[in-house]
């Protein structure tokens, strides 16, 4: 094991102005800079989508409120959902993968750096195009600005007859183009894992982060292009007069649902498995134990990946499928609970008996484990077809998937930010501010999304812009909306903590958490070439081996 790399003195030409810095970032093919740009864009859109959600919660604060009209409300939930999935989740997971996957397997860059840069800029301008709809989609038609067809854009609502103007076209093209970022990221990550592992980094020694991102990349490859294909069909319908989803000409609106959810359900796992990946790195380090059941974790991840492509129609129980299909999709969906449950037990098994350090990254991951169990339980409930018939398209479903994606993914993303920020910037984030962020966000999250279950059980449908006062929904909506303030405060603390750390943070050093994977063996931030000498590993915890030559891991694996 090579000693910790000393940071290289920055090669700064005299008169290194801000235009030179800008030029550096715009023209870079470096996986670390691209990773940072992906995550920063994702956090930016997280704020945008959060503001959209806040506007919706303001509208729902009182029964019969008319602060925001129904048309605007439709645009807000469409933009919020599409943004959170495609412009927040996807870039952030691609960004973390980009930055840390090569470092963890001892590589100097991703396998295809230029493809990587191309992918980022496609994502960036695709996202820009999508948001340009606010200005551009009105066009000559005067038919409305931003897309308003919901994030899954069901046919025939998206047909020319029902969606005039160009708002749906912005939805199609913006997402289609930004999808190239995810695709090139996935090809890059798989190529890197296959081709650029350092000596000794066999598949059985790869960190779980790398394993899980490989499964995610595979899922992106087989799920994202079907969405692209369906979107191209929709474009053909809208511009060339084709009839794919045109019921007047014999086309089938339900086919769009099948195509969309064939992408849409694997997409849920594409978003949550990276959350598992961050938790699987953070929980062992802060429990001071090796991950419990490494091979089982790998097997569980792969089986989640396999099962995830066979469950899509559980989003469509209410559409009236054959009884046999309902039974099949319900059974396979419940089966997903098995490998997911295995993972939960493995994380708890890792914590059990460990010397747990409840620093901010660990706090977020602990909350994640609890919240994800609840999200999984409501998922199993919704997998039972009759239960789903009762509660489909109510706030219970909204509560379920926000528990997964906020309580699961966003919590682990925050944990990952606190865990890896020292590596990326060389500065520590403040622990006190981190705890403020955590507690504010947990309280806000619980207020908002736990109460949503109740509204759903009381029968409040999703996507309604207002409601009558005699349904006893008002108080629950007010609690839900109140939670937004706490979440927003938590996020503000987070950005303040980042600004303060960048300005005057405590230097982190190469390995502030006493961790075990290869990214902590190089300086913080890592030099352009990552490792001066290609590392060679002998176990799953190469840094443990280096720090404890008297009792290295390879004697026990």
């Amino acid at each position: 094991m090579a000693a910790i790399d000393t940071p290289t003195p920055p090669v700064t030409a005299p008169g290194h102005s801000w235009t030179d810095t800008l030029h550096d970032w715009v023209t870079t093919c470096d996986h670390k800079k691209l990773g940072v740009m992906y995550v920063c864009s994702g956090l930016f859109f997280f704020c945008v989508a959060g503001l959209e959600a806040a506007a919706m919660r303001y509208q729902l604060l009182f029964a019969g409120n008319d602060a925001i009209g129904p048309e605007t409300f439709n645009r807000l939930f469409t933009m919020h959902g599409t943004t959170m999935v495609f412009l927040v989740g996807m870039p952030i997971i691609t960004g973390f993968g980009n930055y840390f996957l090569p470092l963890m397997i001892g590589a100097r860059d991703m396998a295809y750096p230029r493809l990587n840069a191309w992918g980022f800029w496609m994502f960036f301008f695709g996202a820009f195009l999508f948001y340009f709809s606010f200005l551009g989609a009105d066009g000559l038609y005067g038919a409305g600005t931003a897309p308003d067809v919901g994030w899954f854009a069901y046919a025939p609502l998206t047909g020319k007859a029902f969606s005039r103007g160009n708002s749906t076209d912005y939805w199609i093209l913006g997402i289609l183009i930004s999808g190239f970022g995810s695709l090139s990221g996935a090809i890059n990550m798989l190529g890197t894992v296959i081709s650029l592992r350092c000596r000794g980094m066999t598949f059985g020694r790869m960190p779980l982060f790398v394993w899980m991102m490989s499964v995610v990349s595979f899922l992106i490859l087989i799920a994202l292009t079907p969405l692209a294909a369906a979107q191209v069909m929709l474009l053909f319908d809208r511009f060339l007069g084709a009839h794919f989803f045109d019921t007047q000409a014999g086309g089938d609106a339900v086919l769009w649902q099948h195509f969309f959810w064939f992408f849409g359900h694997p997409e849920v796992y594409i978003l949550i498995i990276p959350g598992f990946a961050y938790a699987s790195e953070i929980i062992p380090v802060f429990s001071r134990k090796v991950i419990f059941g490494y091979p089982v974790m790998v097997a569980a991840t792969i089986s989640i990946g396999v099962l995830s492509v066979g469950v899509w129609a559980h989003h469509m129980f209410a559409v009236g499928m054959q009884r046999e299909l309902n039974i099949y999709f319900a059974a396979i969906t419940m089966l997903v609970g098995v490998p997911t449950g295995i993972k939960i037990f493995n994380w708890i098994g890792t914590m059990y008996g460990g010397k747990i350090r409840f620093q901010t990254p660990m706090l977020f991951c602990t909350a994640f484990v609890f919240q994800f169990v609840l999200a999984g339980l409501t998922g199993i409930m919704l997998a039972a077809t009759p239960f789903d018939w009762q509660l489909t398209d109510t706030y219970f479903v909204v509560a379920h998937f926000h528990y997964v994606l906020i309580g699961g993914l966003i919590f682990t993303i925050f944990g990952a930010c606190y865990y890896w920020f020292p590596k990326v910037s060389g500065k520590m984030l403040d622990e006190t501010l981190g705890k403020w962020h955590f507690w504010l966000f947990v309280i806000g999250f619980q207020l908002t999304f736990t109460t949503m279950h109740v509204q759903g059980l009381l029968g409040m449908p999703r996507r309604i812009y207002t409601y009558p006062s005699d349904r006893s929904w008002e108080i629950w909506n007010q609690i839900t909306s109140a939670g937004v303030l706490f979440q927003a405060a938590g996020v503000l603390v987070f950005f303040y903590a980042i600004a303060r750390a960048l300005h005057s943070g405590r230097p982190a050093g190469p390995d502030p958490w006493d961790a075990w994977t290869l990214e902590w063996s190089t300086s913080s931030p890592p030099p352009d070439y990552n490792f001066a000498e290609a590392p060679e590993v002998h176990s799953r915890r190469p840094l443990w081996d280096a720090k404890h030559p008297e009792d290295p891991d390879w004697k026990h694996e």
Partner: protein
Amino acid sequence: MSDATLPRQLDDGRRVDRGRAGMACLILTESAFFAIFVVAYLFYIGKSVTGPQPVDVLDFPVVGTVALLSSSGTIMFAVRALRRGEIARFIASFLVTITLGVVFLVSTAMEWNRLIFEDGLTIGTNLFGTTFYSLVGFHAAHVCIGILLMSGIWSMTLLGHVKSRHAEKVELVSWYWHFVDAVWLVVLTSVYIVGL
């Protein structure tokens, strides 16, 4: 830590070439793209509410199919020749491959010309037209990309820039070409055998 304490490294550090890995991933994701169009075609067979129906207008594309399938053989010869450093043979068999690809495109173009101007079938006529032109069209677009890639390599070879050490890269293009061929087999089966 001295190296003597370390266990013998069983992993020699040799890895699959990154070009191969990347092309395999690209082919995987492209297959998923085509799969959706194939499913749409199969799903809509016989569901057009107006004519023309496939049986009325489609003929089995013998010339195009023979040309495209045999081009998979010639590109294999070409790559083998390049690996051995036989540049003249490579140029010749690569040219044959490109020509066979063009023959396929011409046969598709003639078919479409007939369908559009004689049978009046366009993408907007009925569900058959919608699914037929999009599936066959996306395949033909991939044939075009393959021909462009191969023509680029072929011109560079004439200019003397391609040597036997580039055989690995040219082989990746041949993988792509084989993939385009395999997609044609699926399209052929769905459109001209199952769908008739």
